[in-house]
């Protein structure tokens, strides 16, 4: 079986939002910095106050790599992992949709694709952003 994220922990609001086709991350109510995964304290101002904010489901590619060695059952190699910075500043690892590795580039604008992998779990993946949008 493929590896599944723990959706019931501190990041539950993130996973619930994906299910509803939105991206929500924690936002510090003191300094406004966004963060993910969930943390009690803000790493910038160490404040405890936060809320879960919906953010723009878009970002840019920072790098990528292609796994040829299989580390997990249920994930067929080769597959590509991308490093993405959301426009709100939060960084994520993910997979690209509809784009081959050779067509990836640093700074490539991408937008969210919500991929349901079980009846409860949705992953946040990315496809190249349509230039006209």
């Amino acid at each position: 079986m493929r590896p599944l994220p723990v959706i019931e922990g501190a990041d539950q609001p993130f996973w619930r939002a994906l299910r509803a086709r939105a991206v929500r991350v924690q936002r510090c109510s003191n300094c406004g910095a966004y963060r993910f995964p969930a943390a009690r304290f803000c790493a910038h101002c160490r404040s405890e106050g936060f809320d879960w904010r919906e953010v723009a489901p878009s970002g840019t590619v920072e790098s990528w790599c292609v796994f040829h060695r299989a580390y997990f059952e249920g994930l067929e190699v080769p597959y590509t992992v991308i490093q993405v910075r959301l426009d709100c500043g939060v960084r994520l690892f993910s997979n690209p949709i509809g784009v081959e590795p050779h067509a990836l580039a640093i700074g490539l604008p991408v937008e969210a694709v919500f991929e349901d992998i079980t009846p409860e779990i949705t992953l946040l993946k990315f496809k190249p952003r349509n230039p006209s949008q």
Partner: protein
Amino acid sequence: MSQSVAVVGVGNTRYGKLPDYDAYELGLWALKDALADCGLRFEDIDGLIVNRIPDYQRFCEIAGLNPSYVSITPGQGRFSGICIETAAALIRDGIAATVALVYGNNGRSGGDRYGGAGDTYGSGGGGLWFAYGMTSPGAFHALMGRRHMELYGTTAEELGSVSKTFREHAALNPAAVMRTPFTLADYHASRYICEPLHLLDYCLINDGGVALILTSGERARDLVQPPVYLRGYGMATALTGSSFPPDDFWRAPMRKAAEKSFANAGATHADVSALMIYDNFTPTVLFALEGFGYCREGESGPFVAQGHLKLGARYPTNTSGGHLSESYMQGWALNAEAVRQIRGACGERQVEDCTFVHYMAAAPVVTSIIYGRDPS
């Protein structure tokens, strides 16, 4: 710096597959070897830091040690440099007169995996990304390597030349695990693990142990081996946000650690005879060359391809073969090699008139150590 500190003893086990020994026993084997090297006794050790060995109490029980100072550090490669710099501080502060640093690694026989379900690389949050297939220190460095290629035009040939050069050095080192030279064609033909990195861009996984004995320069002069002085050292970190690759390839902390260590060594790049660069993966070597100022930003690819790291060239690097070919001793064996080079004890792979050797590690914790033949 006020009081000088020197490495007076180095020891190591055989390297390879040693299934009959656990990490404690590998550490003790290396420690016996290091004490024999410098003519000191177990009773002379009053400071001890163990690394990757699971428990300091058990280690002391097995080794029959009651040091005044004892500590334990996690099995991450960045800790070799940290331990050495800490040992120097303990000696300078009079907390301990003679410090033993002991490393034991049974990862090969113990079946250690560096990716997949048990992966904790980074700050322990690795499991978060498993659903996307993201795992392993190798993939982290593949992401950094790809970014370097895209930004600066670094090529696979250039990465391959690092690995090929270190293998040529290992061919001259009887202790090295992998000693058969290969061509760039062999490099290209080796399978991808995580593209752009091939198998030959990855360090080995093997069993072994290393120990170093340090004391003050003053005491060192009475011992068997010529002292090798810690002329300069420095540390810097980039830990915030370090679950992800740094934008600057750790250049900022490396610059800081380099400046500090060169300043207190009273030396410059021009004085350095050889380099020992933490080589978990080939791209790390490129990042270190740039960050520590041996070439300019983005120019490390052509720099290595021009052959500057080879024995006989300007900056012979990882003359033992490094982690890529000698032994995966997480920085420890590179520091042992630095000491042996300055002693002039490296046989066929000896660097001529070796006066300064620079050990450096590019990671979220950067360490820089400049070893010197002369006390000042």
